[in-house]
């Protein structure tokens, strides 16, 4: 049997068209919106550690990439139906924090997305406060303290976190001042706006929307306008 170009070319063309069609209809998404995020348990880290093996840092990098994907997918749905996405987001941030607790991007995304986009304040404080033994930076603890004070209205926890932040080597006078202002429970709203504006500057442009909305809500408050 001899193969002729007059046969090969049309057959190859049809096969190529089938490949293109197949790819266009199999719109495989990393996360299905209807799929519930698994609930995190400490035992799950055994599985993640087993597959990551010698590269736990890479597992954390992949978790961050998943966070980017989840955020992008969540923006395609209406705000009211994003809760499933936020559960996935929280799960990936926990994975990232467990696999590489030194990775600063995890804490930055926790602050920017989990707290102010997903409104998961309790979970954000939990992840941010876990940075303490691993990072020399006071930033995550300071943010956790701010969230505990401003959103959870738990001043005892907020002061504890601010106090821990002020003991970090890079603690600024602002951190100490903030901790003391928490004690006095004064300058709440204005300090909050100032603090959030400062934090927003450190976030990439496309992830600033959640914080911006929060500032607007605070500024609408009478206390801020006095």
């Amino acid at each position, binding site marked *: 049997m001899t193969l002729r170009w007059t046969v090969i070319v049309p057959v190859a063309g049809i096969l190529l068209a089938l490949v293109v069609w197949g790819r266009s209809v199999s719109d495989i998404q990393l996360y299905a919106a209807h799929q519930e995020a698994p609930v995190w348990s*400490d035992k799950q*880290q055994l599985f993640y550690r*087993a597959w990551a093996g*010698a*590269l736990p*840092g890479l597992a954390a*990098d992949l978790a961050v990439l998943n966070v980017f994907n989840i955020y992008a997918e969540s923006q395609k749905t209406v705000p009211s139906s994003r809760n499933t996405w936020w559960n996935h987001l929280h799960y990936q941030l926990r994975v990232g924090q467990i696999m590489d607790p*030194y990775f600063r*991007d995890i804490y930055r995304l926790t602050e920017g997305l989990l707290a102010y986009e997903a409104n998961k304040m309790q979970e954000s404080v939990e992840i941010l406060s876990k940075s303490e033994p691993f990072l020399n930076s006071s930033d995550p603890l300071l943010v956790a303290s701010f969230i505990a004070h401003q959103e959870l209205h738990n001043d005892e926890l907020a002061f504890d976190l601010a106090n821990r932040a002020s003991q970090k080597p890079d603690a600024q006078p602002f951190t100490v001042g903030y901790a003391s202002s928490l004690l006095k429970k004064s300058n709440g709203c204005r300090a909050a706006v100032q603090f959030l504006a400062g934090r927003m500057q450190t976030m*990439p442009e496309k992830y600033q929307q959640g914080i911006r909305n929060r500032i607007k809500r605070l500024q609408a408050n009478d206390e801020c306008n006095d």
Partner: protein
Amino acid sequence: MKKTLFLALLTLREIASQRIYQILAAILMFVPWLMLIPASLFMLDIGKVIIDLLFLCLHCWLLVYIFFIATPLLARDIEQSTCHIFLTLPMSRAQYFLARFAGITSGFLPLLLLFLISGSLAIAFASSAWQGYVGSNTDTSFIFGTLLILLPYIALTAVLFLITSSASGLPEITVFLFSVWILCWTIPPVLAALQNVEIQQSTSNIVMVIIQATNQLLPDLSSSEISLAMAHNHTIETVQVIGYCIHHLAYALLAMLIAILLFRRRDLS
């Protein structure tokens, strides 16, 4: 000694003349540069991500070398009885195994050199492109980490000889070596996680004993703590580094010793 050196050099030449080895060398020259693309997606710790990705490349090429270059070379010696050519020089079986081991481990060096040069240049470029996001010590951490991560693979190469000393051919060697690699990859980090009190409480004692017993038999291939420390430019204490190096080199020598003892008694007819 002369014969051992001769066979070691011959092994190196055999390896270097293989197409896959040359392709691997060519790939290693540009793959570290490709790693800069995913690294650019990150926000603060870009230097850390670059090192993570470079270490991923390192593990991948080391595995390709062991499974697709070293293993078939040794398996051919046994399956096609090529080893008889050397053993009738006359050369003792111990000399034959040692020479092959020296040749195969020295085959790592040209690839390692290429990888280090290419990786260091890529990091230098990243440092200038993303100033402030790539630490000044990233280059040193990468080189130091790469050299440390290589050691477990020398131990794995010795395990390859241990398996070959009594295996019948390529499928058997590959299956057993792959199983050893999987266990070495997964168990040490799981054991580290089991140090957590909360996890210990929820894990049965029998499971803990089995995992720990298995771990004692295998080289600690994971080097996960080193990867993390190097990626974040953390310093490792000298005692720890010396202990780590001695652990892997001693394991490799022990495995080779047992392999030679087993191979000496093997019926090759």
